[in-house]
């Protein structure tokens, strides 16, 4: 609280990026965890909540006629602009927010103060929801060739690895220790994915400390053991996900890559995914493109091209495809590494897993995959997501790229995934929000030392409880082409711009009607009808005498279904004009089943009020959209039910 210079400012105007012409006046509050804007208006609950931990940057703009603009740029790509009447207030808010959004210690993060009304047992239950041991046993481990080594139980051999690691049974402890000494950060080769059909594995590690000529017998034995643990093949691939030039440069620093002459029966392969710095700059450019106001088609496409973002996504996808094909089609095991083995390696292993195993295309499967390949294997979430103030150079959208690869696959295989893109976007949001403890710190050891499980809540159960929102109605698990290996096309035109993520808060850019939401409702309704039918059939059998009465009730059910059906198909919001003049977009649009209810509530009212204001100056004719968008989303009580309301709103019941 000591960082808040200015807890409350009156008469602040709120602008949202997508609608520079419409504003709302209200009061701005700064709390220890949130920035809260409460709009002045007839409706209550006119609120916007922004978590400090989601704020990426706070920028003061040049004073305008109406006041002093303050821009809040969030890590989930939301941009909020306030106009504050007094310069001193603006400055105070700026200073306060600048500090509040740059926490120095983990304890300042929201997950440590987030305290929903659940008891200890429930909280522990939320952490037990995902069990990696169960995941390994689902894969078929341990078995006669692979077992858990106790060597890293105390994180002594490798402090960025999890405590439980699978290695070939034939490998002795000295070999592991020897191998770990020959690998950056001690990250020795260990199992990431096991394919029980053909005993092939995907293993991961960091780069070897080979320099120009060094070799390590234990490391060579380690690879040999991994290769031999796949009885069906006579060699294995070693995939270095870096561009060859980068790997060669590393040799001068005593690191490098495996020399094929020293290792028996390996085939070495470079893949050429760029490093975190290139990716950071690329995403920055992409964000700039996504934020362009009314660009021409040419500007947008040129910007997209110049960002190089989709090129990087394609290279990650190709790497994943190479590995998954090696495993599924050739039956050859693969060892994957990059430099440290926690960025590109995590991306590539997890993309390959999604391609290989239909389980990872289910809701729970994706959760487990992220928990395994990213959280447990020490992807440095705190550094990459910039949870704490620190090296800006450590920040990089590595996990964003993985989620985007999954999204690109979903676009190509609309029936192969149990989840929808809202699931990916929610995960993305929570990775950055620090709302839950899952993505705090850089390794399992750090999380243990910080008692994350005791002090914070886990996101996975929270998402699981809302799984109905995340289901893909088109999912066909039994379809043969959705079984086994997915073979995506990597033709350039298969890589698309992910509008729902990067323009997440620009409502007017998205389709006004959702095919998937509609289908989901239809499906649920069908299921409900089936259940009811079954129920009535039962009753019919029992209440044979009262047959007439039962029939009467059944009729009633169908009538009530009618209303349910019409709900998601409500197209009243269809009627919202777009901006065809070429200026900045000027219309709020509301969408049924929106996620960010906190904002939605606010803008729901705003649309109504400002439409009335604007219609005069624009045309003198009442805006048809106002009544349509107004009535369907009167704010509120939904915010309790809303799946993601906690993203921006308070969850303290």
């Amino acid at each position, binding site marked *: 609280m000591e960082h808040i210079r200015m807890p409350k400012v009156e008469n602040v105007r709120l602008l949202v990026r997508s609608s520079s012409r419409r504003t709302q006046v209200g009061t701005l509050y700064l709390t220890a965890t949130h920035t809260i804007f409460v709009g002045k208006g007839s409706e209550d609950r006119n609120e916007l909540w922004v978590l400090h931990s989601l704020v990426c940057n706070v920028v003061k703009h040049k004073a305008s006629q109406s006041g002093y603009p303050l821009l809040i740029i969030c890590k989930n790509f939301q941009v909020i602009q306030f106009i504050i009447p007094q310069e001193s207030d603006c400055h105070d808010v700026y200073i306060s927010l600048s500090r509040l959004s740059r926490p120095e210690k983990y304890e300042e993060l929201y997950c440590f103060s987030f305290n929903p009304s659940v008891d200890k047992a429930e909280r522990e239950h939320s952490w037990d929801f995902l069990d990696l041991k169960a995941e390994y046993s689902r894969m078929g481990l341990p078995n006669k060739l692979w077992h858990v080594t106790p060597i890293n139980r105390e994180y002594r051999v490798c402090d960025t690895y999890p405590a439980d690691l699978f290695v070939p049974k034939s490998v002795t402890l000295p070999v592991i220790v020897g191998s770990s000494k020959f690998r950056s950060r001690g990250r020795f080769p260990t199992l990431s994915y096991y394919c029980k059909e053909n005993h092939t594995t995907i293993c991961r590690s960091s780069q070897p400390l080979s320099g120009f000529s060094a070799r390590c017998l234990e490391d060579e034995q380690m690879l040999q053991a991994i290769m031999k643990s796949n009885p069906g093949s006579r060699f294995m691939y070693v995939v270095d996900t870096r561009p060859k030039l980068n790997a060669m440069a590393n040799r001068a620093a005593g690191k490098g890559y495996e020399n094929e002459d020293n290792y028996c029966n390996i085939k070495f392969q470079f893949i050429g995914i760029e490093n975190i710095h290139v990716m950071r700059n690329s995403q920055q450019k992409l964000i700039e493109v*996504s934020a362009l106001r009314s660009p*021409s*088609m*040419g500007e*947008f*496409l*040129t910007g997209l*091209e110049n960002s*190089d973002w*989709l*090129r990087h996504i394609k290279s990650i996808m190709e790497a994943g495809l190479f590995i998954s094909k090696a495993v599924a089609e050739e039956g050859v095991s693969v060892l994957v590494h990059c430099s440290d083995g926690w960025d590109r390696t995590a991306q590539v292993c997890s993309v390959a897993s999604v391609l290989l195993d239909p389980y990872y295309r289910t809701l729970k499967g994706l959760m487990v995959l992220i928990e395994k390949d990213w959280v447990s294997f020490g992807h440095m979430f705190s550094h990459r997501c910039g949870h704490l103030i620190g090296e800006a150079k450590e920040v990089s959208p590595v996990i964003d790229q993985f989620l985007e690869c999954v999204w690109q696959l979903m676009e*190509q*295989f*609309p*029936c192969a995934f149990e989840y929808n893109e809202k699931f990916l976007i929610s995960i993305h949001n929570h990775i950055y929000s620090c709302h839950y403890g899952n993505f705090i710190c850089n390794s399992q050891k750090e999380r243990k030392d910080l008692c994350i499980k005791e002090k914070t809540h886990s996101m996975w159960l929270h998402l699981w409880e809302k799984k109905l929102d995340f289901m893909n109605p*088109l999912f*066909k698990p039994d*379809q043969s*082409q959705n079984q086994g290996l997915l073979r995506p*096309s990597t*033709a*350039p*035109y298969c890589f*698309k*711009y992910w*509008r729902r993520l990067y*323009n997440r808060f620009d409502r*007017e*850019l998205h*389709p*006004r*009607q*959702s*095919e998937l939401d*509609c*289908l989901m409702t*239809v*499906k649920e*309704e*069908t299921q409900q*009808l089936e259940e009811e*039918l079954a129920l009535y059939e039962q009753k019919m059998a029992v209440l044979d005498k009262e047959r007439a009465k039962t029939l009467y009730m059944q009729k009633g059910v*169908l009538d009530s279904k*009618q209303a349910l*059906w019409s709900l998601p*198909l409500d*197209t*009243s919001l*269809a*009627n*919202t*004009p*777009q901006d*065809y003049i*070429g200026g900045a977009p000027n219309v709020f649009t509301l969408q049924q089943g929106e996620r960010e209810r906190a904002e939605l509530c606010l803008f729901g009212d705003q649309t109504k009020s400002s439409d009335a204001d604007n219609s005069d100056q624009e*045309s*003198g*004719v009442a*805006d*048809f959209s106002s009544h349509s968008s107004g009535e369907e989303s009167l704010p509120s009580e939904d915010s309790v039910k809303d799946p993601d309301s906690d993203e921006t709103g308070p969850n303290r019941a």
Partner: protein
Amino acid sequence: MELSEHIKTANVEDVTLRRPFHPALRGTLCVTSHHLLFSDRKDEASWQLLILLKNIDAIEKSVENLFGYPRAMGSSGTITIKCKDLLVLQLEIPGMEECLNIASSIEALSSLESVTEMYPFFYRPSHLTLNGPWGLSSTEQYYKQTERLWDRWRVSTVNSDYSVCPSYPSAVIVPREVDDDKLIRSARFRQGGRFPVLSYCHHRNGMVIMRSSQPLTGANKKRCKEDELLLQAVIDGSELGYIIDLRSAQQAQQARMTGGGFESKSFYSHWKRIHRHHERGKIVQESLIKLVEACSDPSHSVDRWLSKLENSKWLSHVHSALSTAGLVVECVERDGHSVLVHGSEGTDNTLLVSSLAQLILDPASRTVTGFLCLLEREWIQAGHPFQQRCAHSAYSHARLKQECPIFLLLLDCVWQVWRQFPLALEFSEALLLRLAQEVYASNYGTFLCNSEQERCAAGVKENTHCLFQSLLRPDIEEQYLNPLYEPTDLAIWPSVHPQSLQLWTGLFLRWTEYAQNMEEAREEVWSIVKEHHEQAGPDRTNNTLSTHCDTLTPFENLMDELTIL
């Protein structure tokens, strides 16, 4: 010259056919006057591929003659066939001579000039008869059905012999108070005689969309009283109307040098002119060529792909068309003013913008019948020169004359609207794809010729079948319906931000692996809806989904019977 004289080799055995994403097939190739027929006779159930020769946009041949070998083994040729529906096929033909003969037959027969020699004049399916009425509606019928027009508008038959405007239909709708003499004078003042006529009257407020060609003001700023009166009668006392000129202000100025021009403020004081630049003709055709070229190489890097996509400018045309249509809708629906749309000739972009505006505004044009009626009224009767514009598609090496894929652009824009409002249109993407194919090569006479006058002269109505009628009769095929259709009375304003517009993969990537997964998704949508229908029962009267499913069932049964026979 008889068509059959072009055929020197009618049959070749042992031809290998290669198609994308299918294994190569061996079989017999036949050339007839209008078709290329490939049949694979390996199994009992022979597989056939029938291609309309008119669908072939370009062929490339290469022959190899290995000297010293017997002819049968040594020489062979490959013909690559590039179709107007963007499919590319390869035929390996044994025998150099046969190969060359076939190639020259295809070249000659795929580019017939005379309309009456084209296939629609020979297409006689057993389930259709030629005696019925041709087309879905006429200007008179449209007028009769649209009660809101009766008060202030009338049907004029001033063009009944096509002398006033050769590209207009015989009947047009004009303001009641303007007599035919004034129309004739106005026509003389408009390029090609395309005087302002009614295109759409908005059901909400009675405002109208008119369309015409440019006025012939010329360098001397000529004026035409009757034209001014005609437009004055359109707005009838209200303050203001908008003229959406589909050229930049500069282009409109330049047009005066060649006799064209624009409506000047001083003579049309109640009309406000807005200029929106639209590319036309050759530039749009070249966009299509570049886009198809970019889509044809999956080995490009992403950068190269995006740069080619950008460079093709196709999506920019989509963007402009939708933006201007949105502007027209804004004038009509939101501001409550009437609009006149024109470019130069008024036969291309003008029709594109006016028909898109109607799709956005008018719920009636979003049903299958309504949409086909819209196309008939605004494109076929309104005189879009289909024969000239669609003579060649993206692959042709022929020198461009008057080709321009404006109609494809319309279909693409409609597809974009469907993407943004997946519940608002009764028809599906499949219907758009079917139209995209039919407009270039068809069994039906609907897209033949350049105007109603030409169609009359060629006897199209008497001697060919109508595509639209056949699409609607007896039941619409399930694949052309949108299972999620839920009509809305409101305008559906599409977003025109570049972030919201996408490449129409269904058309441009139709023959790639990409399309196959989408097909699976479409089937799944249908099965979800059908399952729902089974559970919910047929007594859900105001549910359009149920009604469609009902009409579909008998049709499917019919299909089963056919297969058995």
